[in-house]
């Protein structure tokens, strides 16, 4: 079914492309939103990803990955581009020239505008996840939300497979640590870890 739509889209059939978009848009947008933590940027990255995918449909190889996975790899890469643009503005003159005369006031560390309605454990986990260093955080998201394999993650993140693994592994370590601390604080036994005096 998907393969048929791809064939048609390749031939320039807009209706087929629209169906592909409709099927995969939610998963791609959600992944982008989590990676970027900004709805508008995520929408931009998602659009970029679909435009790229449709323009490079001939390169898609169903033997290598599912279409959904291919899209996720592309959107992750778009997200990285977007972050680079957003964060480099202050650093690079060239970027300034590329973006025209009005560098907008970007804020890479701004508050996420999603997940405001989480409660209980989910809220605690989400809060802790956002304190994990960025690369490990993104690796955890790709792994546990995107469902990517380490090889696919490596492709999406432009790193070695072993690096993808160590990012997930460290992400877990940091997350567990943060959650334990949160649990300790809630139960009011904050001081119990400090038995080994310096």
């Amino acid at each position, binding site marked *: 079914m998907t393969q048929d739509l791809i064939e048609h889209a390749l031939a320039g059939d807009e209706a087929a492309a629209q169906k592909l978009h409709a099927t995969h848009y939610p998963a791609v947008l959600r992944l982008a939103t989590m990676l970027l933590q900004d709805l508008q940027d995520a*929408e931009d990255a998602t659009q970029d990803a*679909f435009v790229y995918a449709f323009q490079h449909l001939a390169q898609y190889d169903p033997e290598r990955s599912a279409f959904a996975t291919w899209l996720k790899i592309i959107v992750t890469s778009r997200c990285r581009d977007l972050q*680079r643009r957003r964060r480099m503005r202050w650093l690079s003159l060239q970027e*300034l*020239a590329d973006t025209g005369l009005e560098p907008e006031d970007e804020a890479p560390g701004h508050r996420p505008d999603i997940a405001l309605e989480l409660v209980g454990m989910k809220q605690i986990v989400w809060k802790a996840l956002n304190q994990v260093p960025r690369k490990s955080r993104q690796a955890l998201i790709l792994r*546990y939300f995107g469902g990517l394999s380490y090889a696919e993650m490596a492709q999406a993140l432009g790193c070695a497979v072993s690096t993808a693994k160590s990012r997930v592994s460290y992400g877990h370590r940091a*997350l567990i640590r943060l959650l334990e601390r949160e649990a300790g604080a809630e139960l009011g036994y904050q001081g119990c870890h400090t038995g080994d005096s*310096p």
Partner: protein
Amino acid sequence: MTGHLKDGQLLAYMEDNLALPERESALAHLRTCPACRARLERLAQTAKDLSTTLQAVGDQVPLAPARSWEAVARRWKGQRTRPPISPFRPLLRHVATLAVLVMIVGGLAGLIHTLAVTSPAPPLPTPTPVSSRQTSPSPAPGPLPRPYLDQQGAPVSLLILGSDGENTTSGKVDSLTLLYLDPEAEDGFLLSIPRDLYVDVPGYARARAGSVYELGQQGDADVGLALVRETISATLGLPVHHVALVRFESFVALIDAIGGVDVEVLHAIEDPAFPDDRGGHDPLLIPAGEQHLDGALALRYARTRVVPEPEFDRAFRQRQLVLAAHERVTRLDLLPGLISQASTLWSAVADGIETDLSLSDAIDLALLATGVTADGIDTASLGECCALPYTTPAGQRVLLPQPDEIEALMENLLEGER
């Protein structure tokens, strides 16, 4: 198998990613080791909780498929008009020296900006980089910093100490941030270190990270910067190449040098008791709305303790100033003027900065920063992952560093570079 399973092995075991002999050996260890079994359970539980949480977050993302498709279809069919290319572009591309000069200014603004904006932890007072050569003798043996200027492409680490400058003589440091740049890997990170981290100071008793500079400046000694460098190098297990102590005044000088800044004053500020230099009062009145502030007024705006609304506090105002200055410095129409005054600007800001970097080092550093794609700049906070609250026998409330966690964090941030 000797010793406990490593994090990576445990994860691979959980995900069934181990080759048969390794799997069997891990299984044998797990049978006999309750500690590793508990870690495995915790890992599995976290993975499960994480999946559930991310699913719930995903469900909250508002979808607009029709609108998105319209944009995609338009662009796919090539109807999208490319954004006009700035007429400045060819000029800028070919004038490398222009970039160097602007980076003297932009590097300053940029670093302040990064620290204020991307720092994950509590709001930073307002640090910057660098100037004026000062060589300080090392007070105690420690890891030797690697020189980076002789080795093009080698990583460099700069520790930036921020002081809001209210007690200029006390040497109190309000924030510590390590900037690490690796131009070869196009990678780097910003690590914020809590000022209450209780660190081993070579040659001294244990102390808060924020007091180490002060310790080194005691009496006739002028080794504050070197002492901080040694201390933080040892705490992190990573050579710190340079240190810069940046006072808020330097930022104010920068504001004057760029002709002031425009900020949106969210609520009128009335502080009749704002202190003057002579122990008296110098009332401060700033009406709400768009205001143009010069350096002196900006300083008072940042410092007043009057908080008309909770979200309009000192941290917010300081950050607002940093962003306003950043915006001004990066406006292309101001560039020619800034470039012609680069050296004046530099000396204006250098007064509030104490560092072991020279101006040329600073330029190199700024250039280095341009070679590192910001996508590669990770941010982390030592306080969040690697320290626990502790009260010293003397009653000081501090954060006790957790060496294993610090090692794991540094390994993650450096990703096998060491």
